[in-house]
């Protein structure tokens, strides 16, 4: 038995696969790969897997982590290649390893947001001041200052487009990067008809070190 952590990317149209659907998509991919993945015990056995930091539907990611197990004596060969043959185009296995850190140690997610138009400098300046927005969660909604949540943020001009890179908390009191866009919309930088593109590029621990 081997407890495995897989790092994979989820790009292009695969970004629209929701968290629940991703579980099923991964399970079916594992079956197709022919790898000796472990099933749960009990009346209705299914492939055991756990996605560490669920991602919003529509976001791309270069840094998705999923835990599962190989139920075998010898570590299977060419696991990455086998997985990549079985994944739909847009999901790609990047790295597979054992002895991953405890999921509870994930503290931040780094996102890249691309805005169709805008001025990087003005956007950065706007967010230097407090911006109050309403943050909704399953239990409650509350007024927050976005700045209190942003650990790091920078804006880069890329022709007409603006790329924003930000580090936001994950966990109990997390902030979805869509709130950064909402804050920017208060300054008129993001319009209702704009479609910002979100991509997770890393998961970090509380010391801002890469979580593995």
């Amino acid at each position, binding site marked *: 038995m081997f407890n495995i952590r897989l790092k994979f990317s989820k790009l*292009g*149209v*695969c970004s*629209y*696969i*929701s968290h*629940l*659907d991703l579980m*099923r*998509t991964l*399970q*079916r*991919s*594992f*079956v*197709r790969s022919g790898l000796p993945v472990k*099933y749960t015990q009990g*009346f*209705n*056995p*299914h492939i055991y897997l756990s996605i560490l930091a669920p991602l919003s*539907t*529509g976001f791309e990611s270069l840094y998705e982590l999923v835990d599962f197990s190989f139920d075998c004596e010898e570590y299977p060969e060419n696991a990455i290649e086998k997985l990549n043959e*079985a*994944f*739909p*185009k*847009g999901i790609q296995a990047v790295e597979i390893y054992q002895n991953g850190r405890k999921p509870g140690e994930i503290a931040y997610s780094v996102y890249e947001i691309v805005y169709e138009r805008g001025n990087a400098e003005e956007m950065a300046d706007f967010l230097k001041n407090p911006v109050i927005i309403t943050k909704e969660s399953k239990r409650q909604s509350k007024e927050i200052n976005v700045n209190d949540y942003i650990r790091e943020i920078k804006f880069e001009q890329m022709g007409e487009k603006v790329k924003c890179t930000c580090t936001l908390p994950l966990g109990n009191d997390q902030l979805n990067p869509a709130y950064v866009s909402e804050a920017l919309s208060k300054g008129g930088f993001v319009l209702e008809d704009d*479609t910002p593109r979100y991509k997770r590029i890393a998961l970090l621990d509380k010391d801002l070190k890469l979580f593995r």
Partner: protein
Amino acid sequence: MNDKILSCIDRSTKPARYTGGEYNSIVKENCEFNYAICFPDVYEIGMSHLGSKILYGLLNEIDGVWCQRIFAPFNDMEAEMRKRDQALYALESGMDAKKFDMLGFTMQYELNYATILNMLELAGLKYYSKDREESDPIIIGGGPCVYNCEPVADFFDVVLIGEAEEVLPEIIHIYRENKKAGGTKLDYLKKICRIQGIYVPSFYDVTYLENGKVDKITAKNGAPDVVVKAIVEDFDKAYYPKSFVVPSTDIVFDRAMVELFRGCRRGCRFCQAGYTYRPIRARQLETVLEQAKALAKSTGFDEMSLSSLSSSDYPFIAPLCDQMMDYFEDKHISIALPSLRADTFDISIMEKIQKVRKSGLTFAPEAGSQRLRDVINKNLKEEDLYEACGLAFESGYNNIKLYFMIGLPTETNEDLEGIAKIVRGVIYTFKQRGTNKAKGIKIAIGCATFVPKAQTPFQWVGQVTREQAEAKQEHLREHMKIKNVNLSTHYSVSSYLEAVFARGDRRLAPVIVRAHELGCNLDGWDENFKPDMWLQAFKDCGVDGDFYAFTQYEKDDTFPWDHISSGVRKDYLWNEYQKALRGEASPDCKAGCSGCGALSLMKGRKCDV
């Protein structure tokens, strides 16, 4: 997918329905012929449809042909597309529907008709075949509704009657030849109109009598007087896909399927499929098993469905289930056996295949008395039903669904009371034989209003009126005040509309256009169905829907669909109808061939009963 499409998708619910890119979806390059399967319902429904999967695999195996998929967008997605001027597009490439060579709409049931028009509009195409341009795609129809497609005939350039596996590649080949030779659309239609299974509606003129019925249907341009359906004679060798597109989001039937046989030996007189899929052709056990193994491997599905009109009638059902379980059990793949009959119900099979998980059981006695079951030729005895339920209860089931129909020909109040009697009988059986009594029994009763369908013995019969149906339901409810029984009977305008279109003619086309203009779309979805708008559409067009739903035809009347043949002879159907009125059952095909006529479609072969 271009940015405009992505902007629409970003604002839609369940966006994975609109992206394509699923595992096993096919992308080809430099194809000279582009075909799109157009399914007039949403992705979750369309992706569950076996026929589309077969055609998708089949056409994509042809060099130079790329077959893509198009589904109807749901309300929110459609609104985004209209707002952004995004035309209907194919999932594989994002290409506009209008740019395809051929768009193939499947007509699963009558309430999809308005959605077909909505999709044509979203594609930027005119509704009527006569109004479309030379450069527009050929619009072709198929599916179970083709056996009377007259209400939508004017929208289609071609309708494929019957099974497409052999004839569709043939007419695609002719299309490519015709195009290379510089031929027009009309040249093309003339070239294909004599091929078995090909119906070119514009080559037929229809005249009407003063009483509203059809007078004559006249073929022109060399088209045959009667279009006989196409079939695959050697079903065992017929194409079957080795892989299915694996959806990345939840769909209705999210599983692999193999097809055991086509046709049904039972001859239930209300059942259109039972007549139109004849003759009976079965696949060999080994063929089915190989196909199932290949699909399991290529898809990763954890459920395999054994599909047919009546799966327990498959000649090799028991050994097939055994061998499938041997192979699939340790692979954690369960087997689903829909379409079971209570009289051939074999609990050992159920126990075998349900080792993995146990679901509810469904039986369809259809009518409450033996007399009425003889009328409809549902040759199921009450004792058989109780025995099947008893076996199921003994093995731990306590959840049963029973389906009946209301408004069957010759039905009396006594027949309706019989439904309650059956329900009591099932409860009694549970008390005698149930092993899971602590949980108690749960019975769900579904009662739909009977819809007479073309090409069946009841095609001569009118549907009951709303008043009659509601009186029957009331009577049933009075006799059905039984604990633990859930009875759903509400009258629905949808079964009236189904009846109108099932036996309708070409004069209904403007009504469908009007209903579409009034916003009717995706009528199979409760939240979308606008009965008032449909009734308004009839009024606006001055068309009397009641005429179509309630008309009783006479023996020598011409039906609007008389030029379309499933192979079963009209005089045979008439004879079955007369037997029905006399309350006489007909033996099933296994007991002896009754000579329905369908066998004439297969040279030198016999039905696999």
